[in-house]
């Protein structure tokens, strides 16, 4: 089955790629970094409107495990991000990216977690919604969560700065 598993992983990724290129959701671009390695994708996410992230374009790397879609991919922003649910190194902490087996934070209901029927598109969409509505209850970046809770203005300003940075200003 391993051959089958690998080929299914590849097929699945290629299908998803095709799907994303054919009808990509607004504000999301994603695809393999190289045609020879379908296990590493690059994604560009534009910041959702009416949020401090508006106007920004945030590059991220999605790394797929060998047993995808059984295990979720890992997503990391390659630009600087200031968000309660994004680690300082860029790793995204979101329930859809967590396999149901291990719950590191003990707060996520299994309904939001990864399942093999999820897709890259759904991951990216949930990341967009995460940008719009940070979850400050289980922060990955505690400082950002504190700031988000206590001083929203400062948080927004800081976010706008990162947006400017991500655009190269």
């Amino acid at each position, binding site marked *: *089955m*391993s*051959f*089958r*598993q*690998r*080929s*299914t*992983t*590849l*097929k*699945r990724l*290629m*299908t*998803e790629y*095709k*799907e994303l290129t*054919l009808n990509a959701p607004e504000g999301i671009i994603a695809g393999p*970094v*190289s*045609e*020879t*390695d379908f*296990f*590493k994708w*690059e994604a560009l996410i534009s910041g959702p409107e009416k949020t401090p992230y508006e106007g920004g374009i945030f590059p991220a*790397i999605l*790394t*797929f*495990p*060998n*047993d995808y*879609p*059984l295990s979720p991919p*890992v997503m*990391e922003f*390659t630009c600087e991000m200031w968000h309660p649910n994004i680690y300082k*190194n*860029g*790793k995204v902490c979101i329930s859809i990216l967590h*396999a*149901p*087996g291990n719950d590191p934070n003990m707060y996520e209901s*299994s*309904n939001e*977690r990864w*399942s*093999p*029927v999820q897709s890259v598109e759904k991951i990216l969409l949930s990341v967009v919604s995460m940008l719009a509505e940070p979850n400050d209850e289980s922060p990955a970046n505690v400082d950002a969560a504190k700031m988000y809770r206590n001083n929203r203005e400062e948080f927004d300003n800081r976010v706008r700065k990162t947006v400017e940075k991500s655009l190269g200003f």
Partner: protein
Amino acid sequence: MFDFDLTDIYDFPEEYGSFRDFDNLLRCPICKEFLNPTLILTSCQHYGCSYCMRKTITEMNICPMCRHSADATELQKVSLIDDIIKIYKNNRKIILELIEFKKKNNNNRINNVLDTKQDSKIDNHKSELDSKDINLSDDGDTTMATIALSDISSQVGTNEKNDTFLNDNIEQNSNGDFNSKSVSNNGNNDNDNNDNNNNNNNVDIIDNNQSGNSSHEFSSIQPSDDEFVQCPLCLQNIQVKRLNRHMDLNCPKESPLNDPSNNSLNFFMSSSKSDNDSAWKNKIFSNPIVKPKIKNKTQKLRSLAYNLLTESKLRKILKDLKIPSHGDKILMQKRHAEYVNIFNANCDLDHPKSHQRLVEELKRWEKINFETSSPFSKHNSFPKSFFSSRHNNGHNISANSSGSSQNDIDLEEINKEHQSYLQSHKSDFDYLIKQIKKREKKKDSSEDKETSDKNEPEDLIDLDIFYDEHSHISFNSSKEKPIKNNKSIKNKVVRKKQSDSDDEYYEGSKPSKKARSHKTNVKTPTKRYNTRSSHITLDINDDKQNSEDFSNMKRNEEISNNNSSSHNTIEVYEVLSSENESTEKNKEMNYDTKEHKNDTNNNDNNHIVEIKEVQNNSIDNIDITKKVKESNHNNEEIENKSVEPPIVLSDEDVIMGDKIEQKE
């Protein structure tokens, strides 16, 4: 890069969205492939591939769709969907083609085409149609053809299950063949029948489009007689007109893909295809309801409570299952869980694979998941390292990126090794250079060099690197320390002699890129490969040259002996007079300009190409004025000499070029 066929719902155009939905329904929501075989969770009615569902449920204990807790025992096979998928898969390509056909030509246009272009053809075909037993527009026959198709598709399925690697290929590629066969077998069984059939199908398509009736779609794909198609049995490429005979003979040149266990099946299939039997056999086996379903009575394996088992007990269980039983408990646990998945998924298949195959799959699974970090690290090592260096963002979490960083390390190690090798063998290389210096004194030294070549393990490229460095070092030292000029001049002289003789050799035998690329460096590696011949050319010069003007210089330098050629003498002279690198550069510039003149002024000269090459290769840095002097020497001799080896011919070219310059 990928050896499988990738189909998805987006094959259908947007306006045929219902086909997309239909296609999507028959696909596993996990792997996005057609369900093979379909399993349904009795508790929530969600379905998926056997393997995907089993794997998910054993790993997560949830239904992948609705996430309610689920157990593998709740899985139930749905063979009806499997049958639907088989037929659908076989006809999918045709549906797509028909959609495309319809898109291109709307109904009116088809009618026009019918009226004008194909009128006569259609008449012919129709008469043929009437003459044949197959009347595809008749409803009864249509069902029979469909039935035959389903029978064949089930046979395809048989084949597929015995060879998972090619299942998609068989299903997709042999599509047309099967259809053509199913139809042809109903009627005339001559090989020529294919031809008629072909035409029949053309008519068929048109009829369909006219009437809007799509009941005969399956017969529209028909390769022409001379076209090569894949034999559905042995997967060889065979001409359509020879396909029947090929299969009747039980696939003469069988590919190694078929293992012995398949042979009996092949025999059965080929015999069922034989011309005489096929018609009635199709009738008998054609009804999908009557079609015997091989009920697999193998007991499914149950997952174990691993926590309750000791390592030795688990090992015994693995041994009893005849699967590898090495490794620690965790590995055995995972292996057993995977084997249970594979085994149970295999049980769901109509035609299960052998135990051996399952074990092979298990081993491959283990290899991918536990031994190598990435499935592609072996195949795509270069592109990956390339990309990892391009996107060097420092996030190396995944299996893939770790593979690429490994490649980087490998490259670094190789470079380090090269460097260390160069350093450790510097003395050897120095020795070799010294030997080359002596070469002009001792004619037989070339043979010594050849023997030393054999002791030299490093390849040419590495040597080149070294010699690049070395030459730089020597020249630099000559710049910095004028007192040591003598030594550096020696090096230079040696260099020039080498390059001359090298290039002479190459010119004699059509100068290659290699020769040119080497010209600016010290030429030892190349030289050593060509020592023999290059030396001979020098000898020719030696005998005829009397270096009078420059011999004193040579003696002063203690480099050349009296036998050395005029070439070399001049070079020595040149080197002496130049004394430093800057003058040499000037000479190069000077020479380059003259070269251009040569090119422009001597277009009629047949040897112009050779001249160029000779100029590029051999006389690189030689001052033109001195070269002219040399040419005077050479010219006389060459004219005296009636038979010249090709090497010297090229010398002549140089001389001719120089002469022309002189005239200017």
